């Protein structure tokens, strides 16, 4: 299987000297295209830190990160425009959906292609198709504040998928959802991964969804341990 994400010996130390926090001490990880892996670990173990490094939001201290066949970090950033990297390569899903409150559901999803200069009508058509696929098409004209938590989360997923990024990073995406809906969201991400060949990492504490991952990474002492399930 072709690799979607490869992390080699990624180290992240916050601060320096006495107060240094060694959040990641050498993480190795590989996620195939079309694969969804879980990332678990105790609180403060560095899960969010790992997503931020891979998401080009913070800079690792050392190591190597590759997305698809592009090396993005090798003891230093290999791409100049991190903003464009995030826009084109990475979809983010958070614990809270963080939708833009003054845009309706369609435009929340269509925002990125519209800002990238795609004609509004075309971007909205893409957004509606995606919303339909995620089963929230009937709420396309609503404002975010009028949606249920699960619907909001599905809109956030649609937003992360709109640019067909090769990587999706989800930080506790099922936290606000009940068991049924949590499983539905993970199932959805699984479908999306297969359909669009996306490599997906889901950080979670959620006991209900942990068994659904075929492959699971555990972080302990700043290092990852791989576990196979089922």
């Amino acid at each position, binding site marked *: 299987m072709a690799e979607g994400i490869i992390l080699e010996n990624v180290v992240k130390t916050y601060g320096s000297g006495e107060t240094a926090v060694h959040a990641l001490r050498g993480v190795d990880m590989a996620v195939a295209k079309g694969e969804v892996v879980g990332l678990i670990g105790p609180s403060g173990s560095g899960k969010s830190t790992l997503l931020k490094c891979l998401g080009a939001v*913070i800079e690792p201290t050392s190591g190597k990160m590759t997305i698809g066949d592009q090396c993005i970090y090798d003891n230093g950033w290999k791409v100049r425009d991190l*903003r464009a990297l995030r826009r084109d390569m990475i979809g983010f899903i958070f614990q809270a959906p963080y939708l833009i409150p003054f*845009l309706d559901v369609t435009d929340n999803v269509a925002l990125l292609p519209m800002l990238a200069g795609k004609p509004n009508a075309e971007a909205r058509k893409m957004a509606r198709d995606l919303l339909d696929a995620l089963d929230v098409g009937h709420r396309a004209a609503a404002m975010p504040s009028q949606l249920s938590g699960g619907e909001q989360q599905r809109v956030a997923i649609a937003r992360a998928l709109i640019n067909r990024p090769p990587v999706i990073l989800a930080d506790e995406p099922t936290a606000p959802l009940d068991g049924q809906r949590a499983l539905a969201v993970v199932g959805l991400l699984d479908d999306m991964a297969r359909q669009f060949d996306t490599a997906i990492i889901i950080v979670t504490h959620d006991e209900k969804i942990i068994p659904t991952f075929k492959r699971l990474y555990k972080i302990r002492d700043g290092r990852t341990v791989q576990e196979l399930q089922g």
Partner: protein
Amino acid sequence: MISLAGRDILHGWGKFVLTGVGLGLLIGVTLSMAGVYRGMVDDAQALLDNSRADLWVVQKDTLGPYAEPSSLTEDSERPIQAMRGVAQAAGVTYLTMQIAHGDKDVRVMVVGADMGEPGLPGQPTHLISGRQIVRGHYEAVADVKTGFAIGDRVRVRRNSYTVVGLTSRMVSSGGDPMLFLSLKDAQAAQFQRDSDAIVRQRARTATNPQLNPPGNPAVAQAVNAVQAGNANVNAILVTITPDANPDDVAAAIRRWQRLTVYTRAEMEEILVQKLIANSARQIAMFLVILSIVSAAIVAFIIYTMTIGKIREIAVLKLIGTRNRTISWMILQQALGLGLIGFIVGKIAASLWAPFFPKYVLLLPSDSILGFVAVMLICTLASFLAIQAAIKVDPAEAIGG
């Protein structure tokens, strides 16, 4: 493209519009202040226009008759009249005073105009009803702003006058409406002393052997006549013939009559640069303060609006929105606020201008200048908010 600013404004338009209206009232005050200044300049110009003079001849070395007291004898008029290039010359008196109107009183500028022949400079113009003063005495023409009506009796000092005509926009440089009397009547009002003072003056003359030489009562009589006389005017208004050059005529009068003469341009400069200069500076101070206050308010509002959206801005940045796009959103909102403010301010200023006691003149050019200033202030004011938005770390969107 999608307008983030527009969508945000539409989403919370109530708050936005209310804020804009508040700002607008402030801008309205600012525009009115400018209008007050323009009104003062316009009043001064109206005063000069309405007197229909080309030259003002005043007491030597004074800035009279509007900016300083000036007094010269009426008979200076005749030699001026005879000079080459002079078409007409007429004495005028100006006296600002309170006069009774019913149980209240109004501040007016009593103008004594030479009614000897129609069309002399200094006579009332812009008659909107009634007629000019035709009888030698006890008739008056009043500006409508005095509140008098035709047929009213006006008491000025010792005499009563009947209002026979009404004018519009005949005001002093201070904005006080004018009350025209014939020159003789106005001179009496301005220079005549009361009876007791005249009696005392005569007694003093009688006891002075030089003024009342024994055996020659005619001398004392002559002295009394001179003292009681009031043949003074505050200025002589001169019009020139079409072929004459005002500067040349003015130079000739200065040279041959040894009087101070001002041309229209010089008079305008005296009024605008000297008489209303302090008020203008006062207003300029106000304009500066109001601009600063408006800027502070816009900055504060835009800043709080932006801080309220920090989460969304972090998400926008995380998913790859350019700083430029976010800054433009904030700037557009500031400009939108300025636009609403300006429109509200312009309407407000136009609505309340007529209720000001003095003339408020809202010039379109001032409005355009005001609009540019508002937009500039809003641009500067959004700087702080843009700064804050640029500093937002996209990592904040991910949280722990």
